């Protein structure tokens, strides 16, 4: 009998080692798995490569992880924000490497990894600094840049509800990168606000089928659950 929700957060995260490549869900703080990130910080691993849309906000979550110096490189689309002072300082001090990827190419390269594609020709970024040195091709009247998949050893995501087979549903705009990074990582760890019985999630409503999820960790919800969703 498979129970993907049978380990505590520390046990689950202990498989992450120095040098790991980790995708982290969230757009800003919506959908950011804050508790998994805190547990990752406690683990004390180093030399990480992080993939996220942003580069941390304020002093919590991803920003806090960056501040520990555990992250060697970040792949993201929008690091510069009004409250990204932790990243800003590391970047200006030359203490973190940045690979800037247009947001749609970030999504698309993650999807390519999840789908098992070798590479894709994307129109985004053609002729820009972010495509410098990259192979291009003119196809059917339009210009494209060749982009390669982005995979990861781990994905840390935040979902709303999960079951013991790893099926997940999300909440509002916290869904964002969750479903696609779950498909692109060797091991996906989901924190959920509620663990439900098998069969409680309608098969028509499941957003991430359990095949893409290896561990489910229940965290007490901190958001206001005004609108319940299944």
């Amino acid at each position, binding site marked *: 009998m498979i129970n993907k929700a049978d380990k505590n957060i520390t046990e689950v995260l202990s498989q992450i080692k120095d040098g790991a490549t980790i995708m982290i869900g969230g757009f800003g703080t919506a959908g950011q798995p804050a508790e998994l990130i805190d547990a990752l910080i406690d683990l004390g691993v180093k030399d990480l490569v992080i993939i996220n849309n942003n580069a941390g906000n304020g002093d919590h979550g991803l920003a806090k992880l960056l501040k520990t110096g555990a992250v060697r490189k970040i792949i993201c689309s929008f690091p510069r924000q009004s409250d990204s002072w932790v990243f800003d300082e590391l970047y200006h001090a030359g203490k973190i490497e940045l690979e800037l990827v247009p947001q749609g190419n970030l999504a*698309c390269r993650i999807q390519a990894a999840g789908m098992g594609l070798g590479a894709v020709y994307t129109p985004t970024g053609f*002729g*820009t600094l972010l495509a410098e040195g990259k192979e291009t091709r003119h196809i059917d009247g339009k210009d494209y840049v060749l982009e390669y998949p982005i995979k990861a050893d781990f994905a840390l995501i935040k979902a709303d509800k999960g079951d013991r087979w790893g099926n997940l549903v999300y909440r509002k*705009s*916290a869904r964002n*990168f969750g479903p*696609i990074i779950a498909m692109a990582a060797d091991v996906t760890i989901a924190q959920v606000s509620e663990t439900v019985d098998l069969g409680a999630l309608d098969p028509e409503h499941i957003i991430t089928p359990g095949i893409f999820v290896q561990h489910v960790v229940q965290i007490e919800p901190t958001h206001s659950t*005004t*609108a319940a969703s299944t």
Partner: protein
Amino acid sequence: MSHTLLTRDQIAERAAQDIPDGAYVNLGIGLPTKIAKYLPADKDVFLHSENGLLAFGPPPAKGEEDPELINAGKEYVTMLDGGSFFHHGDSFAMMRGGHIDICVLGAFQVAANGDLANWSTGAEGAIPAVGGAMDLAVGAKKVFVMTNHTTKTGEPKIVSELTYPVTGKNCVDRIFTDLCVIDVTVKGLVVTEMVENLSFNDLQAVTGATLIDATK
């Protein structure tokens, strides 16, 4: 009589008039966001946000904010009846796949051929950030730009060639400024409207590219 510059709200109001009923629209972060409040209530205009929202509505009442219901500008929003949530892959398929009818973007510069610069000034030491701008520039059916006609120091933002790093090539269709409306065409930049009491020559004088007058 001297002319009056349009306020930011007036530019937004003018741009809103060119958004038809039933349009799927992405309003870029900053100035373009203002357009939302000038969309007439009798039109169904579907606002898309990169982070997985379609048909979102106005900001929530105070106290009703939900940190998990935000737009791409990370502002609190609400959902209209008939709205939907989806993941980033589907969201950018909407953008890159040509499903968004109109996107409205801010600009550092627009070139005579429709090249857009809005993501980086190329300043030494500045932290680069691009977000979804390059996807919208290449993917939306029509790209509108909403901007002041010149910089704060009076430099033209509409130029013959970009000096800032490009966001998307040949992508801009129409420009709404505090002085005029310009269509980017194969013939060049065609001015279709100007603020009152502004002469075409005066407009040309504050523009870094040759304009064609079609206001008469």
